[in-house]
């Protein structure tokens, strides 16, 4: 849908208001102009006919034979052209009627002229309805001379409709021009809001830390308030992470002391049972602390974090660390399928996720762990960690993401890794899958979006 036609948008509101204003304005101009023109042209027409009938009266004389004649033709040549729509007629009792050369056929009703005053009326003429003017004058030998002059009504109608057509065309053009100008003004006026919308988009997608750019005084305070909110939010996120770390320190160290005390208690015969209970509870507490703190770390930093995952760079320090942590295993990176990929994700959370999967693979691998970056299609990206370890049975796979699932008590760890990995994947909108493949046990993290930059 065009941006103009989005229901409830400012653009649509402005467009409707401007359209209404233009239609009303142009309509009013059209009605006024055609009314004024019609009145003016009719008045002008009638004035002209009155002049012509007076001229006809002046030019009419009687010849030596006593017949009616004109001393010269009327000044308007249209009375000479056959069926031109302009006609005159002079009649007197007992004399041959005198008619204009244009009136090839038909005649005018001499009774139209029945008074010395000039009168006009709409009558049937030789070529249709005609505006007729007439008056009478006494004839020298008695009786009246009837002077009648007529012009076709269609001539006046033609002039008016021609003007109306031209006026309509011009006004339609003017209306279109005004609408186009209105649209340009809307776009110009709303451009700062468009920039603000783009700035918010960049902020949401992590391309910026705040709303960037200069804005008009009307919306600058709003932008300043939003930026203050964003900064406050970022500070809260950072503070939350620090507090999570502080909480970890303040809980874990006393728990370490309690664990030590419980172990010492276990060295005495009388305290063995109590020690076991305390150690079990301490382990459960440690598990909950780790799980909840991990969730607090990644779930607080989702919006407005302005972070990007640059691959394969993000994996390099993790792989170096894994080689130190599992020195008897080989860690291989294969980014040949899609080198230099940028994902719109929090790099800290994504690193945490990769680290958990690589460490888990390192614990179970016989000799080798492989990290592959696969560009499946234009909008899909997968990071796959494969190890050559024993893999998981179907039953183990179905419980793999449960908190505290440990399939080999000798491998160490809290049994939280995959549960945390799944929560991170969910928070980042990633699909985490575990599977036994011919190449070994694989953990795949799939990202689908149109925003993958290569």
């Amino acid at each position, binding site marked *: 849908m065009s941006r103009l036609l989005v229901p409830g948008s400012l653009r649509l509101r402005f467009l409707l208001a401007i359209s209404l204003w233009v239609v009303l304005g142009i309509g009013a101009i059209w009605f006024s102009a055609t009314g004024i023109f019609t009145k003016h042209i009719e008045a002008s027409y009638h004035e002209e006919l009155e002049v012509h009938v007076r001229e006809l009266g002046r030019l009419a004389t009687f010849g030596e034979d006593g017949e009616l004649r004109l001393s010269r033709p009327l000044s308007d040549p249209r009375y000479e052209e056959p069926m031109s729509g302009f006609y005159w007629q002079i009649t007197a009792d007992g004399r041959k009627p005198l008619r204009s050369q244009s009136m090839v056929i038909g005649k005018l009703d001499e009774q139209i002229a029945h008074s010395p005053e000039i009168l006009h009326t709409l009558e049937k003429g030789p070529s249709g309805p005609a505006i007729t003017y007439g008056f009478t004058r006494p004839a020298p030998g008695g009786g009246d001379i009837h002077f009648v002059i007529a012009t076709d009504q269609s001539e006046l109608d033609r002039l008016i409709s021609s003007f109306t057509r031209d006026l309509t065309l011009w006004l339609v053009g003017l209306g279109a021009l005004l609408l186009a100008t209105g649209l340009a003004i809307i776009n110009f006026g709303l451009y700062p809001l468009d920039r603000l919308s783009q700035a918010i988009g960049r902020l949401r997608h992590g391309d910026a830390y705040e709303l960037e750019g200069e804005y008009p005084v009307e919306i600058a305070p709003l932008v300043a308030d939003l930026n203050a909110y964003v900064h406050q939010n970022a500070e809260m996120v950072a503070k939350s992470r620090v507090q999570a*770390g502080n909480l970890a320190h303040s809980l874990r160290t006393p728990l370490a002391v309690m664990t030590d005390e419980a172990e010492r208690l276990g060295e005495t015969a009388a305290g063995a049972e109590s020690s076991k209970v305390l150690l079990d509870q301490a382990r459960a507490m*440690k598990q909950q602390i780790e799980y909840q703190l991990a969730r607090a770390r990644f779930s607080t930093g989702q919006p407005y974090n302005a972070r990007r995952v640059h691959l394969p760079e993000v994996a390099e320090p993790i792989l170096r660390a894994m080689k130190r942590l599992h020195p008897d295993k080989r860690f291989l990176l294969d980014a040949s399928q899609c080198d230099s990929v940028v994902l719109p994700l929090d790099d800290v959370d994504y690193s*945490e996720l990769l680290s958990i999967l690589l460490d888990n693979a390192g614990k179970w691998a016989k000799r080798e762990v492989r990290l592959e970056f696969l560009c499946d299609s234009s909008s899909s990206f997968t990071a796959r960690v494969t190890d050559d370890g024993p893999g998981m049975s179907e039953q183990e796979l179905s419980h793999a993401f449960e908190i505290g699932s440990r399939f080999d008590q000798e491998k160490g760890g809290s049994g939280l890794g995959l549960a945390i990995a799944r929560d991170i994947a969910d928070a980042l909108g990633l699909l985490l899958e575990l599977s036994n493949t011919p190449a070994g046990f694989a953990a795949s993290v799939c990202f689908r979006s149109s925003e993958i930059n290569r």
Partner: protein
Amino acid sequence: MHVLLVEDDPELGPRLSDRLRGAGFAVELATSRSEAEDWPDVDRMAAIILDLGLPDGDGIGLLRDWRNARVETPILILTARGSWQDKVEGLNAGADDFVVKPVRFEELQARLNALFRRQQGSRSNVMEVGDLALDPMTRTVEQAGKPLSVSKQEFRLLHLFMRRAGQVMSQGDILDDLYELDAERELNTVEVLVGRLRRKIGRERIVTLRGMGYRFEK
């Protein structure tokens, strides 16, 4: 074996020291970054256990300083920071292992022994030199497959000799490894201990190099 424990918690530090001593380690406790920084001969320690959250500075910085100064002692980070960001940073700064508190002592001991094994290029828990086999976790010694009874100090000395088999060690080196700095030290203690160990494993295994020290034969 001499271990430097860098831990600022006034309760946990002494407790962990006691446990490590009980496991046969000679333990030095530093409670701040500055104290650890000034510790003499850290490169002669068998291992360093390092807390990251120290009151006067970050443990990661101290770790980097040690590695930049070419201190190659195995370093195990023992910290309350549990994120992988911290782990990756610590390991890439030069730590050999990373353990999050709280940890059962037996796991900590196992991780320390894994570091020692890694340093020696061995993948087995049991150290073997000739017909002698020493298991640091179970604290047992076997000779030609038969259990050998040794005292705590004899075990420590044998462990040191087996870790540095073929190398010459002075009496001072041995004292440094077996005893803490503030312990009373007498050189003849080493002579007495070596004599007792010789009687149990065979005189020919430990060669005296006059004016230089001792060498454990491979």
